[in-house]
């Protein structure tokens, strides 16, 4: 039996430059990139008591929900699942922001990171049925699968490029960006609409409660006294594009997508590798893919869930890659919760906006930094900093590790 060896590496020939030309977000702050950035910049923690799910008897009873009034104002039919509504609104904003129209838009790839699908509505049906109190229509089950978002968006937005639903647990949104970038880089399509979505579901809330991974109070990533994560819901999409194509059509770039790394721990179904081995390789791969040294990176938007295990392993990995205190670090999850399949794309958007604005979002609720985390984790307040390159980490169940690198572009008009 022989090993396959290392990946054959980057194919020869000119490698197209890739830019992020559109952003769209529906977050616990409300709809739109503007409200998202305002919330992040102010360091507002959007984690509150849950309204969507009965929390009686559970250890944690909080989450970061998209406000009801924001969902109602999305302009998407109430007949669609909650997750579809969030996704469609965020995707539309990204396409409008990119100014992508006509054939260029039609040819776009569509890659969506998803886990819960339309489970929230499916659960209502299934639970009623199981308890002998049937309610609603069997049609609710039609949108229960994660693939339903790509079907809905592909149809409503009229896209004919490659369409994929990527399920990689909490790394799904980041993976969809990485895999979409490969399609653009490989010349399959000049543009790709990529991102992730998840709405709150009973099964997710109950599952993380059962695993005792939820903090009863808003999560405190990298804090000595952290007790777990807070779940959230959101949708975030990016338009990524061949830089020449973007320039030729008069598009504008938010940032340059510099590269990515994607690895698997192959260690445990739920726990990260204790030494952060796969995380280290993902970050190193991203740097190699971008042709950058670790010293070029000024900010890391960490996976930073707030669970004892994740934060410890991530800190170890960051120390190996960047050295103690070698980079500024913060966790967006302390502000908008862990938005599951959307987290990777929500945090990619946060990273890009931080580069654009020269302002790094803080880690909320961080009072006593864990001595095992030898980094400035930007507690409480956003910090002005002109950073040229930033990294966004996303890790998930199954030992899935994705690191995305973004580079600052020239200012937008």
């Amino acid at each position, binding site marked *: 039996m*022989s090993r*396959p060896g290392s990946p*054959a590496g980057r194919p020869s020939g000119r490698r197209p430059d890739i830019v992020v030309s559109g952003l769209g977000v529906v977050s616990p702050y409300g709809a739109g990139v503007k409200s998202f950035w305002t919330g992040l910049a102010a360091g507002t923690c959007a984690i509150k008591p849950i309204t969507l799910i009965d929390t009686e008897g559970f250890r944690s009873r909080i989450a970061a929900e998209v406000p009801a009034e924001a969902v109602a104002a999305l302009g998407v039919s109430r007949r669609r699942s909650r997750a579809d509504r969030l996704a469609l609104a965020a995707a539309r904003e990204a396409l409008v922001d990119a100014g992508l129209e006509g054939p260029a838009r039609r040819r776009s790839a569509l890659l969506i990171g998803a886990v819960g699908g339309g489970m929230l509505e499916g659960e209502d049906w299934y639970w009623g049925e199981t308890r002998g109190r049937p309610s609603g229509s069997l049609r609710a089950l039609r949108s229960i699968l994660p693939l339903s978002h790509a079907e809905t968006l592909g149809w409503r937005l009229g896209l004919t490029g490659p369409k994929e639903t990527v399920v990689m*647990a909490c790394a799904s949104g980041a993976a969809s960006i990485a895999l979409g970038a490969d399609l653009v880089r490989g010349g399959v399509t000049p543009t790709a609409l990529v991102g992730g979505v998840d709405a709150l579901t*009973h099964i997710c809330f109950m*599952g993380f409660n059962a695993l005792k991974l939820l903090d009863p109070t808003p999560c405190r990533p990298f804090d000595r006294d952290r007790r777990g994560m807070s779940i959230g819901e959101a949708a975030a999409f990016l338009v990524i594009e061949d830089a020449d194509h973007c320039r030729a059509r008069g598009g504008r770039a938010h940032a340059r997508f510099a590269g990515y790394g994607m690895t698997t721990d192959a260690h445990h179904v739920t726990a990260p590798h204790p030494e952060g081995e796969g995380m280290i390789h993902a970050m190193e791969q991203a740097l190699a893919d971008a042709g950058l040294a670790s010293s070029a990176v000024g900010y890391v938007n960490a996976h930073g869930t707030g669970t004892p295990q994740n934060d410890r392993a991530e800190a170890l990995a960051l120390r190996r890659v960047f050295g103690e205190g070698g980079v500024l670090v913060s966790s967006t999850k302390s502000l908008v919760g862990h938005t599951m399949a959307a987290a990777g794309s929500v945090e990619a958007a946060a990273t890009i906006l931080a580069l654009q604005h020269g302002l790094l979002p803080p880690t909320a609720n961080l009072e006593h930094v864990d001595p095992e985390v030898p980094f400035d984790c930007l507690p409480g307040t956003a910090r002005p900093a002109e950073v040229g390159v930033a990294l966004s980490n996303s890790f998930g169940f199954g030992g899935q590790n994705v690191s995305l690198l973004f580079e600052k572009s020239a200012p937008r008009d």
Partner: protein
Amino acid sequence: MSHHRVVVTGLGTVNASTAGGREALAGALALGRSAIGPVRTFAPTDCASRLAAEVDEATLASLVDRDAARRLSRICRLALGACLLAVRDADIAGGPGLGIVVGTEHGDFTSSRDFAQGYLRRGPGGLSPMIFPNTVMNTMASVAAIAVGAKAPSVTVNQATLAGDLAVARGARLVADGRAAAVVAGGVDELFEDVYRRLSQMGALSPMRSRAPEGCRPFAADHNGPVLGEGATFLVLEEREAARARGARVVAEIAETAWGNVPTPPHTGHARRRDAGSPVARLLRDRAFERCYGAGNGDPAVDDWERALLARDLGAGSSLLPPVSLAPLFGQHGGLGALRVGAAALDAERGAASVLVHGIARGGCRTALVVEPAG
């Protein structure tokens, strides 16, 4: 930018007809015997549908060790069994260069049901932390990655009808782009009573409320829906030069892949909807093939749409119409697309110049893989 060339060096399948490597699949295809029969694992009372293609539990038990069998759900055992057969067939070991791509339509609904039932019966105290991770669709990939030591990208794609095709196409892309030296790629689904019953209730399975008898009859005048199957099929895909360097027995080359979307409302198929200019249409333009496998599975919406799309792209008079469907032998499941690619690879190994594996699914996903003899 140029790309690395991708070859198939191993194959593993666990389906209702057979379990094994390339020889087992070749044998089942040569035999051509349908594995569809009355459902055995549950009583489909009150269902209009009563047929399925099921994997024998004893066969499955022989593929996965007893310890793993106790810990893992059935769909994880199906995926793991086929992955282990594929890496054995390819004689390849794990490491940082080995990736995995799993396609599935339904994932592990059995675990989702069991997890929810725990709560519904006993409240929060009835929730099992052991079952919860299985409710996430990437559980099959993570279990298989641990077992075969795959540390390169591990990707799960969720797709109706074409889960296996799309997974193989994505796996080939990872190798072509240099993201992995080798990838174990394929698809899996299990037969699950609740899904079977609901699909039957919704009229999504044969006989679909028609008067014709229940059965899987792709492209036939009296086709009236798919018959569900279960199983897993995985291929080992490798960068061609690396495969040669390690002396691997190459089955065939994945010469081209393309996938795209034909915009249509979710869950529907429309024979009149076209995708001119899409990646698949561009790939098929002015190409000649010796053989064509299709995704047609007896669902009139899929069969008619596939025939119309291929008539436009290959010519209305093409001798390849209708395409060859393997659904009547193995039943419709997430591994069937990878099984089709495996069948095409075996054709190419026997000398077929160029084999097209085509697919279209309700909701508009369209795929094409071109398999050729390894040069």
